[in-house]
């Protein structure tokens, strides 16, 4: 096995030819990656560096360059005291609960579909549908479904004898839960497809051996399936947590952070501060904090992959 990605340079006599080849390879390499690199550097790397700089200022982008003053750590200390930011952060942390719930449901469905169903493709397509639909359309749909007085969900609840069904999105106590139900619904298909791929990688021999030893189906699931899926579960947990910090479209269209800030999350509050209140410095500080949070989760992933996952 040659090391991946190394093209063995064919050996022709003459060091000059070799040098030419190396020179040509360098040029070609840079030319091939340059369009991507230029875009990424301009639109991602420079902006994140600028974000870092702006976060130490009281600038707003309406005032132009003259209005730029460094204020040290003021924006960051303000974040520590900001009630709205606290609530958004707490809401984000509560939302993480969506991830294990969706994973559990997806695993049960994947195991059933994998083991015991006809029409596998059909089921995959059905569960994947919300994942490919636009969040704007989904938000509009659920706004109607959740309608407190005569929406279909409460209509159903009343018909089965719930006299005072929750007001869902209109009630600050239930609004976040309502959003989380939609998040489970949209992420279920993705989780299920990944689990199905993981299940296909488990060798059948293990189950046959367990059958011979007389292990029950349930025992097989907990002793073989679950441990062997741990890398998949871990991957889903991390991507799910990172993803839950980035939910913007849904919140924006569904609730606009309301009622009374009960569904505001960091990315939504950041948008409000930046584009409604026009506080660029403060918004940038929030962006940097968000980046640090996501870096922490990713760090856990690196460490965790070595420690807790059994391959």
């Amino acid at each position: 096995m040659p090391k991946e990605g190394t093209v063995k340079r064919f050996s022709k006599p003459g060091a000059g030819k070799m040098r030419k080849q190396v020179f040509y390879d360098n040029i070609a390499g840079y030319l091939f990656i340059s369009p991507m690199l230029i875009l990424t550097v301009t639109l991602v790397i420079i902006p994140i560096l600028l974000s870092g700089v702006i976060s130490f200022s009281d600038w707003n982008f309406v005032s132009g360059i003259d209005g730029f003053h460094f204020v040290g750590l003021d924006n960051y200390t303000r974040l520590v005291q900001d009630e709205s930011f606290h609530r958004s952060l707490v809401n984000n942390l509560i939302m993480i609960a969506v991830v294990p719930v969706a994973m559990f449901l997806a695993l049960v469905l994947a195991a059933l579909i994998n083991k015991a169903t006809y029409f596998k493709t059909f089921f995959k397509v059905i569960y994947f549908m919300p994942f490919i639909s636009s969040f704007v359309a989904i938000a509009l749909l659920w706004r109607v479904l959740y309608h407190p007085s005569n929406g279909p969900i409460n209509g159903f609840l009343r018909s089965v004898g719930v006299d005072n069904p929750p007001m869902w999105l209109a009630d600050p106590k239930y609004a976040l839960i309502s959003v989380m139900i939609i998040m489970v619904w949209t992420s279920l298909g993705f989780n299920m497809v990944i689990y199905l791929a993981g299940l296909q990688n488990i060798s059948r021999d293990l189950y046959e051996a367990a059958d011979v030893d007389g292990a029950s189906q349930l025992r097989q699931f907990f002793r073989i399936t679950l441990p062997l899926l741990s890398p998949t579960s871990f991957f889903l947990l991390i991507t799910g947590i990172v993803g839950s910090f980035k939910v913007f479209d849904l919140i924006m269209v569904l609730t606009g952070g309301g009622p009374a800030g009960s569904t505001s999350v960091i990315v939504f509050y950041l948008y409000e501060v930046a584009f409604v209140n026009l506080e660029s410095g403060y918004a940038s500080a929030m962006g940097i904090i968000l980046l640090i949070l996501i870096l922490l989760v990713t760090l856990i992933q690196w460490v965790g992959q070595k420690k807790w996952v059994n391959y």
Partner: protein
Amino acid sequence: MRSIKLSRVIVTLFMGFAGILFIMPFLWMLSASFKPELDVMKYPIQWIPKTWNMVENYRQVWAGAVPFSLYYWNSIKVTLMSTALSLIISAMAAYGFSKIVFKGRDALFLLVLATFMIPTQAILVPQFIMYRWLGLFDSHIGLVLLAASGVLGTFLLRQFFLGIHDEIIESARIDAAGHWTIFSRIALPLVQPALATYMILRFIWTWNDYQNPLIFLRSDSLFTLQLGIRKFADFSGEFYSLMMAGAVSAILPLLIIFIIGQKQVIEGVAMGSVKG
């Protein structure tokens, strides 16, 4: 294994029931878009409309006060251009990072990979300012460049290029083929399934994107469909049948693309994640 046939049927039936429950919101949406407004919120739900008002509802959406067809066209334009550009530059970069040896390659790849972690919201403010300076604000080109600046395609396609044996490339080089020839004649055809997967995914993501158009577009004539439905919803207020007809119009084309390419999308998503 023939003895479990019956249990398989039972599980299939159970799963079918769960599946119907799962897509009920979609069925409700479709059914609501066919009804007159008065019947939408009636309980028990009329899954099959008693009175049909489909033509009128969709006519209101497509030929009403909000220029829906213009938004549709804008979305098609931005999505096609984004997908094409993203595909070309991602494939080129993926080839460079996997099949060409050059100075600083791995360091640069790490740099590109690191941008994965940056949440888009954290760079909105500087991007916005830069776009104002560069004159890319309020233009479709600006949106296309933003969509193409994602590194996921590079990462995904690189995984597949790595699977091409170096001997193939080497023998092509002995025949004095340049990198561009190898890339376009040999490497690309070999990773066609991966290209199709990334193409469909990019299409879906760009089509559904709400955040970028919201922040980087100002003129109504440039609005994409996602901004359009939002506007239409605000405009038609409590007319849920019209709102649902708008939502159906936004989801349907994607659904068709997805059902045609479902194998590619589902396998691509699974492969890109499980391998990584």
